[in-house]
């Protein structure tokens, strides 16, 4: 398993970089809009109504953006958490931590693809 992870590590670092880039650029405005402005009533009436958001999300660009907004930050988090774990506890437990995190990111990425396709 460790050899396999070492082989795919360059690919994981690409996903990590892409995830950090997408997450840094887009998620703050997303969290501000849905997590702060919407509950406080700052967003204009109807802007986040189901019909409008569904129409935005279900067009091809919307689907692609949503998939990127879910899957890439998941890989960013998985790789960063793996190295956070190595920093705190060394490589002894990495044999269990790395497969768990990467498998979780892979499974959730598949769930995200299915969810986005179903829109």
């Amino acid at each position: 398993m460790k050899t396999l992870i070492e082989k795919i590590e360059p690919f994981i670092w690409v996903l990590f970089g892409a995830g950090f880039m997408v997450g840094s650029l887009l998620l703050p405005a997303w969290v501000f809009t849905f997590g702060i402005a919407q509950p406080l009533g700052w967003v204009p009436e109807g802007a986040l109504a189901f019909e409008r958001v569904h129409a935005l999300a279900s067009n091809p660009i919307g689907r692609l953006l949503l998939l990127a907004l879910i899957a890439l930050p998941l890989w960013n988090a998985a790789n960063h958490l793996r190295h956070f774990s190595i920093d705190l506890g060394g490589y002894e437990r990495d044999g269990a931590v790395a497969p768990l995190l990467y498998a979780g990111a892979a499974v959730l990425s598949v769930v995200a693809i299915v969810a986005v396709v179903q829109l």
Partner: protein
Amino acid sequence: MPRMAHPQTLQPSKPGSTRTAAAEMPTKFPTGGRYLSYMAFGATAFFYLIVALQVLRMVLALAAGPEAWDRVLVSFQHPLYLGFHAITLAVLLWAGWRFLIKLSAKAQPKKIGPLRPPAAEAIPPLMGVLWLGASALVIIVLWGVFP
């Protein structure tokens, strides 16, 4: 592929002919000196994970229909959620600042294919403009200004 620094990496694979000091953790690790911001940056991954799962929850709700979507929006009005999102926003802004503005200039290769990356001093303002532009675009679209 470089790995994260760890005392074990300093340990020779077999004992050498010269004496070496035993590997040991730096005394300030993990919360003293510069280690604090380094470890805090690592911990921001928890927030990226939670927000990604939250976006997934929202997409699943959109796929399920208007009632599920409204339930998600109503749940965000809970004070605990509001507080969590305020903390999350602060964390994402700090991590974004560190990644896009502080680290990206240092992380550029000498060449990207046949091209050279922009001068190191030009990258932070370029990334700042890109960040502001992307954030403005998300807000303009989600707030119904466009389309």
